[in-house]
């Protein structure tokens, strides 16, 4: 597995998110804006490949998505 394919876990900063829905469109198995909310939540394991994570981090307009660094 190349470093780009290695899974990482992502998180959404609830203070920064402006609810554009960009992440939900990118990968709705990882990001969802619940019907009764306006900010994105991570669902499931929140795991995705590093390259996918870097792409969605770049596309998020509010800069709210980041990789959870291992302890």
């Amino acid at each position, binding site marked *: 597995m190349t470093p780009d394919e290695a899974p990482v876990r992502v998180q959404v900063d609830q*203070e*920064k998110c*402006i*609810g*554009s*829905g*960009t992440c*939900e*469109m990118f990968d709705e198995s990882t990001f969802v*804006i619940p019907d009764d909310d*306006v*900010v994105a939540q991570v669902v499931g394991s929140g795991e995705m490949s590093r390259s996918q994570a870097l792409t969605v981090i770049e596309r998020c*307009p*509010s*800069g709210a998505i980041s990789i959870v660094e291992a302890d």
Partner: protein
Amino acid sequence: MTSLSPPGELAPNVTDDELYAVDIPHERFAQMRAQPGLLWHPHGDNGFWAVTRHADVREVSKDAETYSSAIGHTNLWDLEADALEARRSLIDSDAPSHTRLRRLIAASFTPKNIRKWEQTVRDITGELLDEFVAAGSGDWVGMVAAPLPIRVILTMLGVPLDDADYLVELSNYLVEGTSDQQSIPPDAFGNTTELRLLPFNSPASHALFEYGEQLAELRRREPQDDIVTTLVQAEADGETLTGGEFKNLFHLLVFAGNETTRTAISHGAVALADHPEQWQRVLDDPSMVESATEEVLRWASPVLHMRRTARTDCELAGTRIAEGDKVVMWYASANRDEAMFDDPLAFDVGRVDNEHYAFGGGGPHTCLGAFLARLEIAVLLEEMTNRQISLERTGEPVRLPSNFVRGVVSVDMAVQ
């Protein structure tokens, strides 16, 4: 404070409105992009740092903490403090008030929720195209590009379609306000507010505010499944919207929801008519609609620039910027940056990795209506391919002399 005599060369003039009656001054922007650092552009009794490269626009756009939208104004000139407060909307706000306002409206414009409007967009588009085909020729702006987005946004807002013509009229007066040509007197529509306190210095803003307040009142009594109802109900849910915030947001949605997409559709039609081999590619392979939509957006660059103001001393592209300096992002230039785009002056409906800045360069102020605009343009192209419509330009586009909105007043087209 402001650098009155910055070192180095000055930028060529790219703010003269009359330049834009001809076209974007591409050569001047190319010259600026080629210079190291940032160029200082004199303007009025002061000036601004001209940000013309794609990578630099991105940096300013994404760093909303350093580059404020709330100080001074987001247009080239400063507003007096009371005018800025009276006119303040989503566009002229910083976090945390920007985040709060944006969240109140965000849900209506997510890709998931925009998709729900696809059939509405398709019906409106089909009707306008059928009328244009039946006429055989006419002004593309007046017959298709203008009515399409305004009918869509008014339907989404919950404005009765009987009132659409009135709101189109108001919107047209607002566009005039972005240039130096206002054709209505300060007291038009019963306006008594000083013009400097109104968006675009236009009395039409007063009329639009009044209309929005009446509609809000109606929706408080009779809620519907529309955006105005969402906004008035948001007032009741702890997350409150003040009266001033509501009317500025309503104004922004009506104006931004139609003017910019209208501009994209106008330039898009001109580009497709002027590059028939590109349109043939889409006709032959309708799966190219997606990339063609992005290329129309890059090509059109409907909003030519937005301004920020440095909150602190900072540095960009090796140039030192002082606290309080104006920093202007020229999307029109970033979208033709040869460092980002292969053959940037070519219109290519198959362009890949088309990271244009028609919706801004990223960051929290990214166009709220981006997914709606994309839907409208894509549906238009799809419905044109379904009907096998090819356009021929029968006249020169009449362009708005404005350095801010790259408007097209009219352009005559014929169906081939």
